[in-house]
């Protein structure tokens, strides 16, 4: 099956896939830094004019959400699978 072969191909070249991914991230920030590439008149607040604002928002926001959710779980929300079984 060709789709399976494609996935396997990408997995065999994982270091390269990771490098490409990191390059895309760098390119995103670069596009945000170079003036004139991204038209910031659509920005809603002053903070958004800082280069890489949404990148930081994504990275920190994700870590914060995971920490909040896991803390909530540890506070008693998460429990064993047979909790409701009588």
């Amino acid at each position, binding site marked *: 099956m060709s*789709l399976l072969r494609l996935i396997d191909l990408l997995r065999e070249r994982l270091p390269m896939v990771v490098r490409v991914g990191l390059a895309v*991230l760098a390119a995103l920030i670069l596009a945000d830094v170079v003036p004139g590439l991204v038209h910031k008149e659509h*920005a809603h607040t002053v903070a958004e004019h800082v280069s890489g604002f*949404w990148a930081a928002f*994504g990275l920190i926001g994700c870590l914060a959400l*995971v920490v909040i959710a896991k803390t909530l*779980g540890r506070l008693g929300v998460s429990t064993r699978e047979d*909790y409701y079984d009588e």
Partner: protein
Amino acid sequence: MSSPWIHPALVMLAGGLVLPALPRRLRKVWLLLVPVLAFGLVLTMARGTFGEVTFLKWTLTFGRVDALSLVFAHIMSLMCIIGTLFGLHVEEPGQHVAAWVYVAGSLGAIFAGDLLTLFLFWEVMAFSSVFLIWFRRTPASTAAGFRYLLVHVAGGLALLAGIVLHVKATGSTAFVLFDVHQLTPAGWFILAGFLLNAAVPPLHAWLPDAYPAGTFNGAVFLSAFTTKTAVYALCRGFAGMELLVVLGVIMSLYGVVYAIIENDVRRLFAYHIVSQVGYMVAGVGIGTALAVNGACAHAFAHILYKGLLFMGGGTVLHMTGETRMSALGGLYKKMPWAFLFTLIGGLSISAFPFFSGFVSKSMIVQAGFDEHLLWAGFLLNLAAIGTFYCNGLKVPYFVWFGRNHCQPAAWERAKDPPWNMLAAMGATAFLCVFIGCYTPYLYRMLPYPDAAQAYHPYTSYHVSETLQILLFTALAFFVLVRLRKIEPHAGINLDLDWFYRLGGRAFLWLARRPVQSADRGVGQVYRLGGLVPLMKSAGLVGLFDNRVIDGAVDGLAAAVRGVGRRLRFAQRGALQENLTLVFAVAAILLLAFLVFFRVSAP
């Protein structure tokens, strides 16, 4: 109009009625034909008011056809085709009939022009959809179905109470925008009924409790119809109500936080219904033309990508018998196409550029920023992070890659699903990409065409903003995977259904312990204080009894035995069947009462 107006719900109901009587081979054709016919009716429907029926002193309007009802009817009837195709190989006609009656309920509520008709179809939805859970036929799904029904009956009663109060106060049954700035008690009751069906916390726990308990294809229907019909009703009745912005933002984050720690794939998706409907509720609350357009567009896009995700989850369940991530992993080798389609659903819900969510969700966020609701805009963007984390990264990674936790039997069984399931997923995946790339298809249907035409999602800023948020979320995810911080592990998470699940148990305990022991105590007292004198008097009575009473009693006993024998055939202890029967009888009694009321009213 030259041709008569035909209600698409009527087509679904009639189609469902005929289905069980058809021979097996013909059924497959019928299953494809009827939903396509209903979809065709919606596509070619002229706008206006149709199907007005005078009932008692009220006018019931079955067909209010305008832009708002059409966009919802379009996607509902389209989803019916996809959902039916997905379950085409299911042989039991009852399952298809339940799904179609459910769709009919949704279409009926959407086209309803008055509150009474709305209520009628609202209840049809509740009582038909529960069978999509019961047909799973596991003890857990039977119990979940009863809880689902219990909650929806409560919501339906709130809606009915609101309607009765509203009609009494205003004398009008028309379903139009309520005065959202000075809501009457009647309005609050109706709003509560809508909010329950939209799964707004704290009235949401029924959804992640019941949907994952549904059949593999029933959950696809469930994910689409109830909550989005409620979004339609909110658009119609409560646009511009500020409270909804707050509730919407809360639910968008609530669903995300629970989904992050969820282990069951389908329950995770269910929590993301709560989260995504939060965007729509917030959009309705903002209430501007762009925001209401956004709520409708997002409901449209959501039904497709959420259906696709539930098809992905349903496929995993159908082909492996398992949906817990702690017992899955590495499945790309066995079911690569299911992986690809689920990933497309994940990218669409995450609002990746060129996928459907990107052109719909952004309208709501943009409208929030436009109205200077900065907190709402930022928090909705925060929820978008959790959305991508769960649907675009966590599920695809831990089900199809990651470490293989599959039981040998599940691994042996696993493979890509039958053609009809793949076709349904493929068509939906295509639509998700199509909507994301060719915006006029969706935008032309929205209730405010000017605002839709003026909105352009593909600005350099919006694309850059979205890609930064999502790709750096991906970076955080893979760092966490590398650090082994987010391995799935077995377990469940307690939600607000805890109160009524344990509340029910407390009631049972009360019935078993104090009530039963009181009963036993009374029995004891009776035996000691009552039995001895009774025995004495019994001797005297016996004489009288032997002569006079026996003759009469014998006749009575024979009569009772006869009735009992007949009743035994009807009463087999199947609670679900009995409930259906009870509701049918109640409906008949209600109708009889109404007719009598008309006769006796001056």
